[in-house]
């Protein structure tokens, strides 16, 4: 990574990936951005998983906050998984959260398992992280992590949906990717997006047009995304 891109002068490219576990587009983008980070290497890239609650983004009342509710309350879709993610982060760090997201994403989006405690526990075991505090309510800090991540995404960057990728704690881009691109296209796509995000300040949006046929095909891919194995 050349120095001109190292805007915050850390010697690395910081990537904040804002997601909600339940979003199928986030999951596909997460597979891609993980490929990118693997290809570029940890000495160059610091990929950080950040929470955004779609239930909060879509809330009906300005006084209603998902982090003031229990996961079993109405309209809190995705909350239990987000709290479990926060627990994974707390117990096993960013790397642990990344492992947990991969497992939970695969179970939920590829194997169609609901985001229940049972599925979350399965993902936690497979990724070797501790998430029990998410259901027993013993750790209020998990709510705080969610609230802080969500606030930062919305207030600092203007995040309006998932996934949103932020470069160098400064330049955000909402991404809609489906399915995750083949590995040999991963870096090329990343570089296009990085240049448009960080350098080309005049470009605000690129949106592929969809015919009815293309939309139907997309819905089919969303329902049956390619398997990542295991």
């Amino acid at each position, binding site marked *: 990574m050349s120095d001109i891109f190292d805007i915050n002068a850390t010697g690395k490219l910081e990537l904040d990936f804002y997601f909600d576990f339940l979003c199928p587009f986030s999951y596909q983008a997460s597979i891609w951005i993980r490929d990118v980070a693997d290809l570029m290497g940890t000495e160059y890239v610091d990929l950080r998983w950040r929470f955004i609650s779609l239930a909060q983004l879509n809330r009906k009342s300005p006084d209603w906050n998902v982090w003031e509710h229990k996961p079993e309350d109405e309209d809190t879709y995705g909350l239990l998984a987000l709290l479990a993610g926060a627990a994974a982060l707390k117990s096993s760090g960013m790397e642990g959260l990344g492992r947990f997201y991969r497992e939970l994403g695969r179970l939920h989006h590829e194997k169609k398992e609901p985001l229940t405690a049972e599925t979350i526990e399965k993902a936690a075991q497979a990724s070797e992280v501790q998430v029990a505090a998410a259901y027993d309510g013993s750790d209020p800090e998990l709510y705080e992590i969610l609230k802080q991540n969500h606030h930062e995404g919305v207030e600092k960057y*203007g995040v309006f949906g998932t996934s949103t990728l932020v470069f160098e704690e400064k330049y955000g881009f*909402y991404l809609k990717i489906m399915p995750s691109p083949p590995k040999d296209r991963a870096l090329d796509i990343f570089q296009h997006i990085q240049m448009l995000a960080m350098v080309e300040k005049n470009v605000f949006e690129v*949106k*592929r047009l969809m015919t009815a046929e293309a939309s139907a095909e997309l819905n089919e891919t969303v329902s049956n995304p390619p398997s990542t194995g295991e």
Partner: protein
Amino acid sequence: MTQTAGFMDFNNSGKLEIDFFFDVRCPYAYQAALWLQEVADIFGADLDLRWRFFSLEQINRKDPAWNIWEQAPGADTAKSLWSFLVATAVKNQAGNAALGKFYQSLARMYHEESKDINSQTVLEDAANEAGIKAEALADVFSGKDKSGYELLASEHTLAVDKYGAFGVPTIVFEEKYAAYLKLMPKPASDRALEIFQRFLMITMIDHDVLEIKKPMTAEQNQAVKDTIKAIKKEA
């Protein structure tokens, strides 16, 4: 083809075809047009930039029985209709390149000079810049030449039915790969090709990328509004 690799020449025409769908009243389409014209000038004969009609007044109407091409030009609900009718006459008489010139002139008058695009004089001035004399437009203004209604209907319908267009600018590569692009303002000339190549690759090659959109803080939104305002020259 010299500039564009042969494998991207999907329709085997030996050129890169780009259809640019515009409505003269859209500020984003105007900035993108200025950018794409620069790109086309750099590519030269290898790129065929074709100017196409798309009506925002039509797409924003939810009533399927209402058609802008059945309205009276200049009406409150058909503010861009005169521009399409005159544009058609320019195209019929002098071809696609003149149409591009007319569109860019009229858009400049509208977006930069705050001129009334339903004024016959303004429309004639823009046509004049594209090499068409006022006399040659007499049949359009008298209502005798109705070819513009038909062209607008067919191009708008093509954009919606074939590509799924929902706004402008819509840019179609090789009559196949289409994307909406939001640019403001026109990029610096030395960035024009770079942006074009990234946009082309995402649209033509990387089909898994459906949408990328900059999230905007309140300050960033204000900055865009200020840019649009600054494009308008002081009267």
